[in-house]
């Protein structure tokens, strides 16, 4: 108990220390998150009427973001599999970063759901025994369960490994291995269940296609890893942490395969709807071409498709995937492309046209954008805090002091310039 306490106090001291760039970054995130809170308080006061959602389009930007982020969270598994199933060392060294990303993404998911519900004061109705969770009937109940299991698994694994490393002990494999193996089906389940949540609705032909869950998984294995590569490159550049090229290139290669499957499945869906040409084509037509003069999503989805196809080639060709410039471009294209495709591009056409074939064109209001920006900032803040502790621990810059009580903090800066980083690396 005493050990846990001194570890915890040590982390608090650690996150309060950093370079000027670190303070500016954390300060900006806090500021933006604060603005989001103000926006949310306004929404609480006025009701969801301040959003652009209506009975016709009853889920919007919040649930789109939620859906996308479940994918980002699930993608941590793409690091866990090569690291712990195939024991590939270059990725094993960084797998814990994927778990921390999963934790942050799930926190954002939970925040996005919270701001979307009409009665957040009644959240306790979802707690089994205390409330009345409709399990196993409701897929939303399933989602609550699997998201919490996945969050808990990642928290336990990551915190345990970091805690043991801090105390200069080797993490006990007979404890971590089963949990890590369990986190693989858990990751797949969060995305599958989220897909099923839409998939199971006969009222919405756009979602009621069995290809939906595979499409969800394929796109998740693009967006999450793309974010992680960007992160690895940043970490490598601005902190003392070292990540091997091999690891990054392997992740990029996996993205290429996942993107191919994603595009193929989307093509299969497009073929089926257009060739059949039934009334069920309407939502896809709305998405890709516009319907009766309503075409708000058309430029977005084509942007996403062009981004995804370009990124596929960038990651497929070894020269471009190993070139840092094209690699960064590819990651950004994929992250944006999937954000559009698996966010608004997936949620909105489910409601347009609505079940009685009315067309209401949804576009988020300023409040929705403000609150969402706040949540993204809060999520990045959580992730930054986790990395602020994890990276020094993995580097050996943050560990228990020689007296066995206090903590040794070797990294006072965290974010450092390129020059300072080279000096630091050379001096070691």
């Amino acid at each position, binding site marked *: 108990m005493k050990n846990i306490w001194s570890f915890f106090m040590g982390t608090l001291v650690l996150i309060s220390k950093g370079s000027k760039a670190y303070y500016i970054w954390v300060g900006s995130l806090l500021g933006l998150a604060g603005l989001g809170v103000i926006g949310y308080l306004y929404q609480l006061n006025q009701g969801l009427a301040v*959003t652009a959602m209506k009975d016709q389009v009853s889920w919007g930007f919040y649930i789109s973001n939620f859906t996308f982020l479940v994918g980002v969270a699930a993608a941590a598994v793409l690091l866990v599999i090569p690291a712990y199933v195939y024991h590939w060392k270059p990725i094993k060294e960084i797998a814990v970063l994927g778990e921390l990303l999963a934790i942050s993404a799930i926190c954002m998911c939970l925040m996005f*759901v919270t701001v979307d*519900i009409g009665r957040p004061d*009644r959240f306790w109705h979802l707690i089994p025994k205390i409330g*009345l969770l409709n399990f196993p009937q409701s897929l939303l109940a399933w989602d609550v369960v699997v998201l919490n299991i996945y969050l808990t698994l990642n928290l336990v694994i990551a915190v345990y490994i970091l805690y043991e490393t801090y105390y200069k002990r080797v993490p006990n494999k007979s404890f971590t291995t089963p949990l890590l193996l369990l986190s693989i089906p858990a990751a797949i389940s969060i995305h599958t269940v989220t897909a099923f949540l839409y998939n199971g609705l*006969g009222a919405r032909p756009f979602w009621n296609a069995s290809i939906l869950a595979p499409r969800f998984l394929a796109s998740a294995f693009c967006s999450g890893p793309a974010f992680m590569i960007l992160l690895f490159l940043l970490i490598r550049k601005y902190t003392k942490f070292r990540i091997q090229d091999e690891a990054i290139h392997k992740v990029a290669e996996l993205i290429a395969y996942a993107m191919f499957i994603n595009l193929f499945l989307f093509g299969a869906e497009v073929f089926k709807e257009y060739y059949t040409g039934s*009334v069920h084509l309407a939502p896809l037509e709305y998405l890709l071409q516009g319907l009766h003069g309503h075409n708000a999503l058309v430029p977005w989805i084509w942007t996403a498709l062009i981004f995804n196809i370009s990124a596929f080639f960038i990651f497929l060709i070894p020269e471009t995937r190993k070139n840092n410039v094209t690699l960064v471009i590819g990651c950004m294209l994929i992250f944006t492309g999937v954000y559009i495709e698996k966010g608004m591009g997936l949620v909105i056409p489910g*409601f347009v046209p609505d079940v009685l074939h009315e067309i209401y064109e949804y576009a988020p209001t300023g409040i929705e954008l403000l609150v969402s920006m706040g949540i993204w900032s809060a999520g990045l803040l959580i992730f930054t805090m986790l990395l602020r502790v994890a990276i020094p621990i993995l580097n050996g810059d943050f560990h228990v002091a020689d007296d066995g009580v206090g903590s040794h903090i070797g990294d006072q800066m965290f974010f450092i310039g390129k020059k300072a980083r080279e000096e630091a690396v050379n001096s070691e």
Partner: protein
Amino acid sequence: MSNCCKQPALGIDRRTALKGLATGVAALALPASNASASVWEAFFQKHFRELSKDELKQVLARLTKEYSQEFGKEVSVKATPAIEGVTYGYGLDLSRCIGCRRCVYGCVAENNQSRDPQIHWIRVLQLEQEKGTALEYAEHYYNPQTVPEEGHFYMPVQCQQCSNPPCTKVCPVQATWPEKDGIVVVDYNWCIGCRYCMAACPYGARHFNWGKANVPADELNPDTHYLGNRPRPIGVVEKCTFCIQRTREQPGRYPACEEICPVGARKFGNLNDPESEMRYLIENKRVFILKEELNTQPKFFYFYAT
């Protein structure tokens, strides 16, 4: 925080202000006045079907008092249970309906839907005779001087009271369910406002309180049912209940939409009673249901009597 209990402008009364506060920062509010006691009672209220007889009595008394104070007139809140052996069914004669929308507004008046923002439980579709009941050609906002319009016919759509309702299945907290008499109801005090049921309903029958409901006190129908037309809180889903506050009375009354229809296009009755008008219709006319491919098994039947 301290001025939360002052009478604010814009007609938001003290109770509402408190409630809004409890909604947002329940943990911080800790209000101490008498009015706030009911806020906490509401907060910790159990699911409707888990209330004991005594608890239900207390809840109804609390709501009666709350609504009567809010609207400045006597409001009654009952929780009449389903009548044994009754299953309600509804019939709609498409050859008679003239699209006048009297049912829409009769429903609003009877069931205390919000006037602003406007909520309608019935949507009347104007359809083209040449296209039949194909919904993709429906006109929702037709507004001519007189109805019916040449070449068109009209199809009112409301909750179809499915026997296999996709909406209740998806609710994560069991806040909505089909009653023994077949009416699908919502516990407005248990609904968390996730709107999953609205995504699941194939008929657009569920409506959300995006803003605070607004019903003028002098227009409020004071005869209310807990599961039906009582005033709705913000942030919850509501829907047609076959006028549960009327139809469960003994002797029963017809739903408001049935009663107001000037052409007799609307029929209502007990499907279990072989002598009922509904049974006569089903046996002697040719009825159809909406979106039968979804196997929702509606108890709302459309037919052409002539």
